[in-house]
């Protein structure tokens, strides 16, 4: 019988998942990340299902150290949360979670994912989204500058393409970490222009950052 570690503090969610999985699995429940760490150091499991937020800590306390020892194919992790928005999903997948589910769980989808994960573990693709961010570019003494007020990031270098690529990477990382980006308002632009004076007023440009 396949063994599953379910990390969940809510009795209600423990029961919901247990009812969805039926009697075909040996399910052990850990009510906190710390309890899960102890169990994972003592037992071998075939799958981990985890909630994200706990009164003491979060699931990253388990996911990050676990992924240093076991790969996503050796021990798959399914993350479940009522607050599963795109930035959180990106962070979880980046940390090594195989697939994320938003509550309320739909029984058929969840059971199917558990069965597939135990049969042949897979890693879900992160959600793709595009964020438009206003940045500013200018040239000063032959050096290309790029500034993003929202991320408060100023980069420069001799190669404009290389500077832009670095800015895209910074913004993608910012978006992945859940940072607020997009829809720069005129207040930012005025502030920026005032700071640099009319002669060196940068051009406002828009960088599309795809987080994937």
């Amino acid at each position, binding site marked *: 019988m396949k063994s599953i570690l379910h990390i969940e503090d809510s*009795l*209600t969610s423990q029961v919901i998942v247990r009812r969805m999985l039926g009697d075909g699995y040996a399910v052990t429940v850990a009510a906190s990340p710390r309890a899960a760490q102890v169990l994972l150091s003592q037992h071998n499991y075939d799958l981990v299902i985890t909630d994200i937020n706990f009164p003491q800590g979060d699931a990253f306390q388990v996911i990050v150290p676990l992924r240093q020892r076991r790969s996503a194919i050796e021990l798959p992790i399914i993350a479940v949360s009522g*607050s599963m*928005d*795109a930035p959180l999903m990106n962070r979880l997948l980046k940390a090594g979670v195989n697939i994320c589910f*938003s509550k*309320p769980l739909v029984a058929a989808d969840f059971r199917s994912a558990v069965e597939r994960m135990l049969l042949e573990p897979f890693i879900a693709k992160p959600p793709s989204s595009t964020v438009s961010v206003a940045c500013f570019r200018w040239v000063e003494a032959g050096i290309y500058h790029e500034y993003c007020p929202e991320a408060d990031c100023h980069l420069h270098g001799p190669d404009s393409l290389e500077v832009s690529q670095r800015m895209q990477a910074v913004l993608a990382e910012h978006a992945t970490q859940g940072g*607020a980006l*997009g*829809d720069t308002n005129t207040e930012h632009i005025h502030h920026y222009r005032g700071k640099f004076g009319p002669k060196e007023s940068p051009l406002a440009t828009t960088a599309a950052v795809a987080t994937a």
Partner: protein
Amino acid sequence: MPSLASITDTNIQDFMVRALESVSSTMIHEPVRLVEKTTEALYAGLSDRVFVLSRVGFIGEINGSVHLCIPDEFAQHAAATVLGMTPAEVAEGGHDLVHDVIGEITNVTVGGFKNALCDLGFPCKLTLPTVVRGDGIQVASLQGMSRHIFQFDCGAHRIVADIQMKD
């Protein structure tokens, strides 16, 4: 980031209706229907009834909280449905059992509401649920907060969703 003023009353109503509909149909297996948007005076008419009142806050680029006010008998019915228990088993489990179910229902409902705010450009995180039970329950208006109170019907029961958001 967009301005808070860009969140319309229609947005707030839509987000709450969708969140509660999803939770009600998936977890309680009963459709929920928006009856009306109402005012704080509503609580005066509920003073003689026992309610379970559950709260989850959201903090981040936008701040506020959602209270769900659920009649005690419906809270017990919801607990029985969600946990797959009989009403007698729920009664035997006591208030803690019911509180845990209502806390989770509120957490998932406010999670759906919060995710819609996030999609609109206001990322935020949820606080842990707090649940109380009693009669004469009333949620106070906090200074500097806008308030949106919605009544829903779920089966024969009336549920109140009380949202307060920092202006």
